[in-house]
C-alpha cells in the first residue's frame, strides 16, 4: 500500500534484450550509453531527429513574429496544438535560446499568442518546432496505459500478462510485423499498424482499441515504431559486439595466445573512440532500418493487385481448391488437405535459429514460438477479412512466419502460350475465393436457419433453429 502511494516501485526501465548479459561489462556499458544517448529512458526520452518518425506536434517556419504574436507555416499534417505548447527555435538567431510557450492558438491562421513577448524577433523563414517530442510523450503515456502489460516497457512482448497468452504478444524489436499489406521485402506501413490496433487481432488476445482518437492513434503508432527502432538498434549492436566482446569470445581470444584481457579492453576503448569504427557501425545500423521504414511507407511498397477481385463463383472456388492442393504450392503441406491446419509439416521436426532441433515438432516463427498454420474452417482471419488482406497474406506471405510469399509463383502470363501477354493475378483471387468458401463448405443449404446456396430461405427450418428463446435473467 505504501508502495502505491509513494511510488517506491521506481521508474519503469527499458529491459535489456536476452543477449545483453553475455557481453563483457564494458561492452554492456557502451550499449547502454548508445541507447541512452539516442533514445533515453522511459522517464526521460530523447526525440532523435534521425529517426523517420513524427515526434513533434508540428514543424514549420516563421511567417511573421513580433511581440507576443507568432504566425507560422506548418508542414501538413500536424497534431492538435493546444495552450501551453512549447515553441522550440530550430534555426536562426533564436536557435538554442529559451523556448517560447503558446497561450492561445488560432488554427485557421496558424497564429499563436505567446505567454510572454519575445525579447528578440526571429526572422521570417526560421525553423520552429511546436511541441517538441510531445507525440512521443503522449504515445508513451497511452502505451503505458493500454499496451505495456502485454507488450512490455521496451516492446519486448514480455509484459507481466504475456506469459499467460498464446500466441505471445508481439516483440517489436525485430522490426517485423506479421499482418501487413506491403510487399514481402518491406516492413509494415503505418496504416497496417493502426488498422491492427484499431481492429485488434481476432483469435488472439490482441484487443481492439477502436475508441482511440486519431491523434491518440498517431501517438501510439509512432511510439510503437520508436520502440521497435530502439530494440532493433540494441539487438543489432549487441549482435555486432558479441562476435569479439562477449564473455565467451574474450575467453576464447585469451586462450588463443597473443591477447590478454587488458589488450582486448584497450582495443574496445579505441574502437569506441574511433569514429570510423563502432560509431560508424551504429550509424550504419540506424541508416539501414531507417531507410527500410521510410521506403515501406511509400505507395509503391503496398501490395497492389493487378486485377479487381474475381467475383466468387463455383468455378472460381473450384480453381482455388485445385491450386490449394497443387503440390508445388504446398498450401496443403502446412494447412492440411481439408484446411484444418494439420498438414504434414506440422509433424516434422524443424530447426531453430541456432540450427538445433526444436523439441516440439511443427512450425516456428522468427521469435521462436510454435505457430500452427491456420485452421481455415474457423472463419477467423487474424490479419483482417478484406479481400486485400487475404490477397496480401498470399501475395507477400505472413512476415516472420513460415507462411511464404507466393507473388513469384502465382503471378503468371494471362495466356500461357503467349509470352508477350499481360501478367495476371487471377490465381491469387481464386485462392482467396476458395479460402472465403471453406468455413461454409460443410454447411448444407437450409442448415443453421439459413440457406447458403439459396438465399430465399425456408421458414420452417428457420423456426427451429431460431435462437430467440426467452432467456430468464
Amino acid at each position: 500500500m505504501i508502495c502505491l502511494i509513494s511510488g517506491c516501485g521506481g521508474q519503469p526501465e527499458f529491459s535489456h534484450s536476452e543477449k545483453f548479459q553475455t557481453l563483457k561489462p564494458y561492452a554492456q556499458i557502451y550499449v547502454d550509453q548508445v541507447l541512452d544517448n539516442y533514445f533515453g529512458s522511459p522517464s526521460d526520452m530523447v526525440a532523435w531527429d534521425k529517426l523517420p518518425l513524427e515526434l513533434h506536434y508540428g514543424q514549420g517556419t516563421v511567417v511573421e513574429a513580433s511581440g507576443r504574436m507568432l504566425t507560422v507555416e506548418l508542414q501538413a499534417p500536424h497534431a492538435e496544438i493546444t495552450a501551453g505548447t512549447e515553441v522550440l527555435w530550430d534555426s536562426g538567431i533564436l536557435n538554442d535560446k529559451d523556448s517560447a510557450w503558446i497561450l492561445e492558438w488560432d488554427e485557421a491562421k496558424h497564429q499563436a499568442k505567446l505567454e510572454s513577448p519575445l525579447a528578440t524577433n526571429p526572422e521570417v523563414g526560421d525553423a520552429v518546432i511546436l511541441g517538441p517530442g510531445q507525440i512521443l510523450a503522449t504515445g508513451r503515456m497511452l502505451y503505458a496505459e493500454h499496451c505495456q502489460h502485454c507488450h512490455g516497457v521496451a516492446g519486448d512482448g514480455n509484459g507481466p500478462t504475456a506469459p499467460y497468452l498464446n500466441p505471445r504478444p508481439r516483440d517489436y524489436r525485430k522490426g517485423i510485423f506479421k499482418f501487413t499489406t506491403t510487399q514481402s521485402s518491406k516492413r509494415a506501413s503505418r496504416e497496417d499498424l493502426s488498422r491492427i490496433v484499431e481492429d485488434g487481432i481476432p483469435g488472439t488476445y490482441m484487443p481492439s482499441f477502436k475508441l482511440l482518437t486519431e491523434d491518440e492513434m498517431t501517438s501510439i503508432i509512432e511510439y510503437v515504431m520508436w520502440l521497435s527502432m530502439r530494440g532493433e538498434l540494441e539487438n543489432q549492436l549487441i549482435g555486432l559486439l558479441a562476435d569479439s566482446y562477449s564473455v565467451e569470445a574474450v575467453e576464447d581470444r585469451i586462450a588463443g595466445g597473443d591477447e590478454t584481457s587488458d589488450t582486448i579492453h584497450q582495443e574496445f576503448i579505441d574502437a569506441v573512440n574511433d569514429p570510423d569504427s563502432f560509431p560508424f557501425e551504429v550509424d550504419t545500423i540506424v541508416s539501414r532500418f531507417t531507410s527500410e521504414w521510410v521506403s515501406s511507407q511509400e505507395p509503391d511498397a503496398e501490395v497492389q493487385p493487378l486485377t479487381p477481385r474475381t467475383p466468387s463463383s463455383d468455378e472460381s472456388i473450384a480453381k482455388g481448391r485445385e491450386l490449394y492442393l497443387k503440390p508445388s504450392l504446398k498450401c496443403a503441406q502446412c494447412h492440411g488437405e481439408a484446411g484444418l491446419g494439420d498438414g504434414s509439416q506440422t509433424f516434422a521436426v524443424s530447426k531453430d535459429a541456432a540450427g538445433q532441433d526444436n523439441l516440439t515438432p511443427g512450425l516456428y516463427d522468427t521469435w521462436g514460438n510454435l505457430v500452427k498454420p491456420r485452421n481455415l474452417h474457423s472463419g477467423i482471419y487474424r490479419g483482417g477479412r478484406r479481400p486485400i488482406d487475404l490477397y496480401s497474406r498470399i501475395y507477400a506471405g505472413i512476415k516472420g512466419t513460415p507462411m511464404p510469399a507466393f507473388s513469384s509463383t502465382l503471378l503468371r502470363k494471362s495466356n500461357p502460350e503467349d509470352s508477350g501477354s499481360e501478367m495476371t493475378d487471377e490465381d491469387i483471387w481464386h485462392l482467396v475465393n476458395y479460402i472465403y468458401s471453406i468455413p461454409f463448405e460443410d454447411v448444407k443449404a437450409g442448415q443453421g436457419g439459413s440457406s447458403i446456396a439459396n438465399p430465399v430461405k425456408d421458414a420452417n427450418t428457420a423456426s427451429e433453429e431460431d435462437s430467440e428463446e426467452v432467456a430468464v435473467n
Partner: protein
Amino acid sequence: MKWFWCLFFAFWPIVAIVVCLLAPGNNWWFPGEAASPLGRRIDDLFYMILWITSITFVGTQLVLAYVLFKGASDTEPGTANEKAWFSHGSHKLEVIWSSVPAVILLFIAFYQLDVWAEYRVKDAFPRKRMEAVFERIHQDRQKNDSLALAEVTARQFEWRIRYPGFNADGTLKALMPDPQPTDLYAVNDLHLPASAPVMINLRTQDVQHSFFLPELRIKQDAVPGLVIPIWFEADQQRSYQLLCAELCGWGHYKMNARFVAESDEQFIEYLRQLEREQNEDRVDDAPDTDEEE
C-alpha cells in the same frame, strides 16, 4: 457516553434524509438521465423502492433514537430513575412486522411485473414497433426470421459485432443464427437505429460477460452456450457507452465500447460503409482508398 450513542443514532436518519434530498439533483444514483422510455420506467421503479426503503429506514431510526433519548433522560440523576422495561415476545407485534413487509414486497413484485415482462419476456417485446423499423430500412424477411439486427459476441476483451449483409436488390438480409458469407463485421462499435426498439442477440465466446448500456439502463449477462435477445430504444441520435459489467478477467476494464444510435438512413449507410470496407480489394475506383475510416 450514553448521550453520545443517542446523538450517534439520531445522526443517521438525518444523513439519510439529506442524501435523499440532494442525490437526484446531483446525479448520485444514476449516470445521467435515462435515455430510453424503458430506462425511465426502470428509474421510476428505483425511486419507488428508494422511497419505501428511505421512509422505513428513517422511521425505524427515529423510533430508535427516541427510545434511546427517553431511556437516557429517565436515568439522569434527579429524575424518577425508572428502569427500562423488558418484554419477552409479543405475538401480535411479530405478526405485524412480518406481514407488513411481506405485503410491501408483494406489492413491489406485482408492480414491476410489466416492466420486467417488457424487458425480458419475448412475447411482451414491442414486436410491432420493431417490425416497423424493418419496414423502414427495407429488410427482406420471413415471418420467423430473427428480430435482431445484430449479433453481439463478447470475448476477452472486446465486443465483436455481426450484422446481416445486403441482397443484390439492395434490401437488407435478415440476421441468421450462423455466420453467412455476406455478413458484415465490426468490433467495439455498435450502430443501430434510434428512437425505435431494436434488438440484438447476445452471446459470449468464452467466459461470462455482461452487456451494459448504463445510460439506457440495460444490463444483461452473456452466458456461454446461450443466445440471449435484448432490445432497447435510444431516445436520441448520439453515441452511448457500452461496458462490460461482469468481472470477466484481468482485462475486464478494456471492454468499453461505443453504441451509436442514429437515423435509419445513417444506419443503412453505416452498413454500406462496412460493406465497402469489407470488400476492399485496392483496385477498382481509386487506389489507396482502403485506409478511410
